[in-house]
């Protein structure tokens, strides 16, 4: 069964066309991540799914029901906001229980579900505190707890980790992944952090300017990007795009090579001078200025003695190169 189906969804704000013909299916139990640059419409799409915005056209189906005109609370979804959006006047317990009480659930059921969620998220000792008395990470867990107690068919997360510091972000990321495994619920997760996307997703949806650029598993997108945008968006350091430095690439085409696919070789096709070296211990990143004036990032495994100013030659395997035409689309029969 599908958890969510979007068909030709469009969204206009006045005359601004924000979502353009979105088609997407999310399977039961799947973890789908929306990524894309700022302003591409990720939050808007999530809000259309939640029912906080109406789609201008197209249908939104959750489970078996078309929900275009169904209010958010009846869609079987729960949303976690970037700013947590906890009710400031209520305790942790009441924050989690308010939705159930509003539904008219008996007190015992509310108590039971809230205490179950508190236990799952290690929030028991904070039950009577108010949001102002919690740390950012604890608030985030309360926000997640509030979504769990409603037992939704579909979880929606809008950049839930962006207000946390790096260490906490990593922990919470792991917690969310665990939560997904224990609840085996469908989740949609918005982020502009590609590491979150790669590590959490069963499938990634790359959005740009309100359009779906590509959908696939993280490795599919990494190994087989449909266009230059997707290729550049995933991977860190990001892919090198060269127009002139590699002999044999026709005019107008661009060759894309991931930094880890380049290696130092005496007889390499690309020659240049090292302008910067980053030693990370496990990896060494070189910035190389080619003779043709383009900059290439090279990622070498382990530690490397190369110094700034060294003249180097670089080589790569033909299989690892991607070719893009002038329209920035991927082309498969390269001339080289």
């Amino acid at each position, binding site marked *: 069964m599908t958890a969510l189906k979007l068909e030709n969804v469009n969204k206009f704000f006045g005359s601004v066309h924000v979502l353009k013909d979105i088609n997407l299916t999310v399977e039961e139990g799947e973890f789908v991540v929306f990524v894309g640059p700022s302003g591409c419409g990720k939050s808007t799409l999530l809000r259309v799914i*939640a*029912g*906080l915005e109406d789609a201008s056209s197209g249908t939104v189906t959750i489970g078996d029901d078309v929900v275009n005109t169904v*209010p*958010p*609370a*009846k869609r079987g*979804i*729960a*949303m976690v*906001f*970037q*700013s947590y*959006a*906890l*009710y*400031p*006047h209520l305790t942790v317990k009441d924050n989690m229980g*308010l*939705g159930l009480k*509003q*539904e008219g659930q008996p007190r015992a059921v509310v108590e039971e579900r809230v205490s179950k969620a508190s236990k799952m998220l290690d929030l028991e000792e904070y039950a009577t505190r*108010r949001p*102002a008395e919690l740390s950012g990470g604890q608030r985030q867990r309360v926000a997640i707890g*509030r979504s769990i107690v*409603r037992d939704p068919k579909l979880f929606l997360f809008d950049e839930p980790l962006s207000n946390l510091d790096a260490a906490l972000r990593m922990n919470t990321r792991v917690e969310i992944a665990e939560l997904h495994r224990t609840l085996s619920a469908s989740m949609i997760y918005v982020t502009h952090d590609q590491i979150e996307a790669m590590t959490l997703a069963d499938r990634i949806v790359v959005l740009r300017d309100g359009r779906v650029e590509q959908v696939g598993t993280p490795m599919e997108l990494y190994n087989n990007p449909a266009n230059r945008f997707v290729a550049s968006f995933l991977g860190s350091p990001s892919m090198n795009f060269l127009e002139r430095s590699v002999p044999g690439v026709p005019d107008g085409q661009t060759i894309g090579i991931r930094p880890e696919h380049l290696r130092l070789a005496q007889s390499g096709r690309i020659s240049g001078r090292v302008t910067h070296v980053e030693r990370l211990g496990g990896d060494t990143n070189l910035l190389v200025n080619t003779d043709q004036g383009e900059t290439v990032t090279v990622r070498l495994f382990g530690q490397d003695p190369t110094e700034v100013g060294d003249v180097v030659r670089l080589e790569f395997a033909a299989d690892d190169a991607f070719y893009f035409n002038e329209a920035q689309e991927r082309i498969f029969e390269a001339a080289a």
Partner: protein
Amino acid sequence: MAAPSKQKTRWHIAVFLAPAVLVYTAVMIYPLFNTLRLSLYSEIDQERIWVGLQNFRTLFGDAIWSDQFWNALANNGWFFLIHMLVQNPIGIALAAILSSPRLRFSAFYRSAIFIPTILSFVIVGFAWKLILSPIWGIAPGMLDAIGLKFLYQPWLGKEEYALTTLSLVSVWQYVGIPMMLIYAALLSIPDEILEAGECDGITGMAAFWKIKLPLILPSIGIISVLTFVANFNAFDLIYAAQGALAGPDFSTDILGTFMYRTFFGFQLQLGDPHMGSAIASAMFGIILIGVCIYLFGIQRRLRNYQF
């Protein structure tokens, strides 16, 4: 190094505080203490002599004075009660309606409701006197037009209605203030909290009672205390509509008009600045007690939420 720079800072503080302190002292602190001082004197044979608390003994002990005082205080209490029960709930309701994003022309309504607040009390008092007048007023005619003529009473002229009527006129004039304050408080509630409520099924009236109202309680507290201070200092509307005798038969007399009559005199009554100051001091005490009850009893229990 630290010590001299500290001293310099002190001079700055004094210099920058001076204008405000001077102005405030000249127009507020000095007159206040002088009034309190004046209430301890009396004038006998055109000479000012110290009488201690004698004026207060007269005010509370002498039946002629104390009857008037308690009458004015009770009227003032009713005046305040009507503002609390009518003005503030209506102000909150209007603000809640105005803050609804679906309402069209909200800027127009907002201004229209706020305009009476900036009108002079003279205009308001006089206009309502004309509107409600049984002879020239439009109120009897309008009620007649919808077949409710029997409801009409000369509201400003009847002892049992006059104070309530004037309170409602005052509510009409000032309802824009709580409306604006609550409106601002409502706008400061982040959309995401309301949207989280929407996902929880808390919409419409439930959103108001369960989310918005608790979050604007601190503003409601501030409005209550502002209303209290304004009501117990009120004078102008009653004076404009009913004169300093606060008719009919003192039924609209509040502390402000009572103090005015006593201080400056009116018609046959001679002015007595010392008794007037005693009343003013009593008013000051009442307001002080009220504000203290609010500050120490209520405000501490209200939480301020920063979003």
